[in-house]
């Protein structure tokens, strides 16, 4: 096993990366190795799919499988070895199908089909020991002694960015936004990685192309969410319990939440959001369900204590699962790409067992005094008051905007983001998205120019909304995004953040402060490129970085 895809990767013995029998996230060596094999196969599927797209054809089921397969390998998504054995067998079958389709399409187009090499020809072993013996070829560090650390680092940046793209694209797809452009883009990136590229400039260009693809994907996801559930509006969300039976929904998937709300309608069960599902309350068509009563708990890393204390079943709809403790193993369910051995998995949107578990569980005995937080400041809402915002900036009431967004995590260094938000000057607006917000979203930020000083844009999945807000402000002030009194303070944890970073770089957004630590897969030389060429700034202390942000504006 070798894995360095997330921020918390092991750095204990001088090696940056998890390389023992178990990763920091709890993923065991067998599962990690099988995931490497699956990724290797998906590159092979990408080789055929990319060529098929170029011939004007597509196998949508295969492209969907590729996205789903990539999604299962994100941090804190699927820990179930058996699932990967099945996915590997399925990938082999789909590869054969794609190969036949490609060869037929080429002949039909009057061309001689190319004989592909590398992952396209890979034959997975039919036993677990056999697969594990093959894992070496699929390791992210395969060939490092020949190509060097920089090449491995850039390939990893693209692969991890691609995983993030696939996760966003999967969320969009299940809500009806299936686009050929996205399927083709993902297949192209896999095909590129399958060539084992070594040219640094070509790798950098491909990384930026992936950032542009991700912008399209995030636009599709925004269209999927708002198209199905309406544009978010400012909404007060209850953060204290209501007496009665209860279900907790965590992860990111709004479709799953919607299905759970339907399955629990008129059953006397209250539904609570957890973690990144919080922004769901802002969507009119989800808010309309009276039994979507509130938000429970905080960010993902606190789930063990929070789930243990929750008096009902819990559904994990996407990433952010950590090892379920015995006290709630029998009442936690996974859905979609998520999995853990011995934990019940929802199939075919059938929530009957979850309902049964909710009715059999005690629920909350008492209603606690009401406390609320505000969500729903997505692009439509913020742009709707753009005039007020622009006037407040021109009058000097608002001096600066800070976007403090991204993932949360357990590392003590993440207090930086709490300090940053708390110490941002009173004449600044704090925009936030992602679960990093839980560090400060229950603090009192007051109001500014008639607006709340803390504006919650949504999930990490809503970065498109944040970018639209920035572009609209730049338009109003007739300047570029980099000239706005705006500082981006990004906390990263997993691979969706890599995708977002590539998008920001591709859009030419500079001066992104990135922390709490920098990706282990980026070598000093690559970090230097990010700093010199793209203006990425490693975080220092909240105090110094706030001062530097304000000075940059003054300069």
């Amino acid at each position, binding site marked *: 096993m070798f894995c360095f895809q997330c921020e918390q990767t092991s750095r204990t013995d001088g090696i940056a990366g998890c390389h023992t029998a178990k990763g920091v996230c709890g993923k065991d060596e067998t599962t990690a190795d099988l995931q490497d094999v699956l990724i290797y196969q998906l590159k092979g599927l990408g080789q055929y799919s990319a060529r098929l797209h170029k011939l004007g054809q597509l196998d949508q089921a295969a492209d969907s499988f590729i996205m789903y397969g990539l999604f299962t390998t994100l941090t804190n998504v699927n820990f179930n070895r058996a699932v990967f054995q099945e996915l590997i067998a399925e990938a082999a079958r789909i590869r054969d199908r794609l190969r036949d389709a490609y060869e037929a399409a080429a002949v039909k187009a009057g061309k001689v089909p190319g004989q592909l090499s590398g992952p396209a020809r890979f034959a997975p072993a039919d036993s677990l020991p056999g697969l594990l013996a093959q894992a070496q070829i699929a390791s992210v560090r395969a060939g490092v002694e020949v190509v060097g650390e920089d090449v491995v680092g850039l390939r990893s940046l693209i692969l991890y960015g691609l995983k993030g793209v696939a996760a966003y694209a999967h969320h969009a797809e299940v809500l009806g936004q299936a686009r050929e452009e996205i399927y083709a883009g993902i297949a192209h990136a896999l095909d590129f990685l399958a060539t084992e590229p070594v040219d640094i400039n070509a790798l950098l260009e491909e990384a930026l192309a992936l950032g542009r693809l991700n912008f399209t994907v995030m636009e599709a996801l925004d269209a999927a969410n708002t198209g199905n559930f309406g544009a978010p509006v400012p909404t007060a969300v209850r953060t204290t319990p209501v007496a009665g039976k209860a279900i907790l929904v965590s992860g990111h998937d709004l479709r799953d939440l919607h299905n759970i709300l339907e399955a629990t309608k008129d059953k006397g069960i209250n539904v609570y959001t957890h973690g990144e599902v919080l922004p769901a309350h802002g969507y009119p068509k989800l808010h309309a369900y009276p039994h979507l009563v509130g938000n429970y708990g905080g960010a993902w890393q606190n789930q063990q204590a929070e789930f243990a*204390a929750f008096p009902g079943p819990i559904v994990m709809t996407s990433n952010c699962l950590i090892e379920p403790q015995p006290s709630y193993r029998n009442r936690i369910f996974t859905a979609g790409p998520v999995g853990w051995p011995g934990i019940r998995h929802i199939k075919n949107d059938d929530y009957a067992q979850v309902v049964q578990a909710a009715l*059999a569980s005690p629920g909350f005995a008492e209603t606690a005094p009401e406390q609320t937080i505000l969500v729903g400041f997505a692009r439509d809402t913020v742009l709707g008051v753009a005039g007020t915002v622009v006037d407040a900036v021109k009058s000097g009431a608002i001096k600066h905007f800070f976007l403090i967004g991204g993932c949360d995590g357990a*590392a003590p260094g993440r207090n930086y983001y709490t300090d940053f938000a708390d110490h941002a000057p009173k004449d600044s607006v704090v925009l936030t998205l992602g679960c990093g917000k839980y560090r400060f979203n229950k603090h009192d930020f007051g109001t500014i120019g008639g607006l709340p000083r803390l504006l919650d844009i949504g999930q990490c999945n809503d970065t498109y909304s944040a970018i639209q807000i920035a572009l609209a402000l730049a338009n109003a002030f007739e300047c570029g995004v980099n000239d706005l009194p705006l500082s981006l303070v990004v906390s990263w944890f997993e691979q969706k953040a890599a995708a977002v970073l590539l998008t920001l770089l591709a859009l030419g957004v500079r001066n992104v402060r990135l922390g*709490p630590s920098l990706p282990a897969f980026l070598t000093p030389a690559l970090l230097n490129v990010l700093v010199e060429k793209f203006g990425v700034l490693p975080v220092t202390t909240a105090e110094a970085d706030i001062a530097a942000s304000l000075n940059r504006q003054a300069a």
Partner: protein
Amino acid sequence: MTVTLVTRDEARLAFSCAEGQNVLAAAEAAGLYPPAMCHEGSCGLCQAHVLEGGYEMGPHTASALPAGPGGVLLCRCLPQGDLTVQLPCTDAQVGRHQIPVREAVIEAMGPAGAGAVALTLRLKPDAAAGVGADFVPGQYMELAIPGTDIRRAYSLANLPNWDGRLDFIIRLLPGGAFSTWLGERAAVGDALTVRGPLGHFVLDESSPRPRCLVGGGCGMAPILSMLRHMAEFQDSTPVHLIYGANREDELLTVELDELRATLPQLGVTLSVWHPAPGWAGFTGTAAQALEVHLAEAAESPDIYVCGPPKMLDAVIAVARERAVPEAQIYAERVQS
């Protein structure tokens, strides 16, 4: 050495810690589960501050360590004497193995073959626990004889469920207190107190190795629960069942055909030590059947064995002779 954890709401949780044991391992051994993830000094979730006492820190990621004097990670903190540690969480956020005590009624009882009784209990709804039966396949419950303090432990044969159903297979021992009550006085509708779930005899579902499940007598109850669990989850791990008895008529009626239908990879050896003429299965003890299985196995399996003491000892001896690592042997004793 004694370690005292002080929570944010000033609860004091004391437990003993052995030489060379880290604070987190000692807490978990004492049934206390402060938030923790990697257990390897990397993730930073188990951060805390030592208020008093000497300690050493094992290998860890420097950035995971909390700021301030006494900042430690519980999973890497080795006490050098009595230690008092401030936790960043509240008492309610420290997970615990609280063992529920609940009321149940006898819903059904009947012969299970070979002098054993199949007993089904239904849990009464409970304000804290709800109506469900929450346990991990392989665990057991303590059943109290009504009106007495006498408790006996029996493994659960069914699956955790939300109907509050508990299935047991209980061998009636001549003169045994619980057996006498069950055989002579108990009736459908009687209420009794149950305490559990208890026990650590559960599947290691993250293990990549094949499994060999060995059951003898009423030791088949937890083995059945494990197999039913694998069937429910369509677990594709290679698995072989060895079910042993002294005589054919001691084999309980179990739904082997149904299990084979849902677990196509399931191999079964029925081993009878002293069979009647015409016995088509394996002739010999469960331990001898295991010896044959291990000799043919391509890799060393995880072995789960539950049965009477003599059978258990013989099976473990065979596993050791065949160089199955100790960490791959899971054993649970039942009364013969």
